[in-house]
């Protein structure tokens, strides 16, 4: 059974048109992450939540925002997607600070036209 679910699997948006990617988890983990992964590159950490505490990476563009309305759900909002934002977006969870084991979803492949 899928434990970290990302929807949709593929998302196409237009240049400059806001888009929201969603992630849900059934693990009840209190840490949730968003990563961006471009072709042949490593996943790049965008931000993470520890419960409701939001932690933004210093080099994450302002164009990227996130919301976590409750433990189970986390959203990635891209306010004005550019061509350079086309990538796989990965959501992951972790059961607190005393573990380094991440659980990833299958990702959302975003295309920007």
């Amino acid at each position, binding site marked *: 059974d899928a434990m*970290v679910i990302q929807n949709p699997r593929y998302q196409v948006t237009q240049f400059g048109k806001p888009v929201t990617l969603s992630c849900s988890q059934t693990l009840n983990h209190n*840490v949730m992450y968003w990563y961006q992964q471009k072709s042949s590159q*490593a996943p790049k*950490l965008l931000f*993470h939540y520890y419960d409701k505490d939001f932690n933004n990476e210093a080099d994450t563009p302002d164009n990227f925002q996130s919301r976590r309305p409750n433990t189970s759900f986390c959203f990635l909002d891209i306010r004005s997607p550019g061509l350079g934002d086309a990538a796989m977006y990965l959501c992951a969870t972790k059961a607190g600070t*005393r573990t*380094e084991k991440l659980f990833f979803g299958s990702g959302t492949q975003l295309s920007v036209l």
Partner: protein
Amino acid sequence: LAKTTQPISMDSYEGQEVNITCSHNNIATNDYITWYQQFPSQGPRFIIQGYKTKVTNEVASLFIPADRKSSTLSLPRVSLSDTAVYYCLVVLNNNDMRFGAGTRLTVKP
């Protein structure tokens, strides 16, 4: 933040043992070493984690020398399905989970 260095790529043949070494010279006392595997179009998957000496599970072994400045992931008798990218992470702040460049392993028949 402990930076990691791995070979960019490695080739192997089916049935061989593969060892991938990761350097983390400025690892801190409380840091753990964690390895992930990623197949194309999938999220990374946790393989193994260790602090010192040797850890073994059903998938791999992890060897960590006494100075902890490096670690070696050992995959016994690889198959074609082990072709993937392998990432070494040294976690500083427990929630600061950043991936290095990774090693692209290609297993050939």
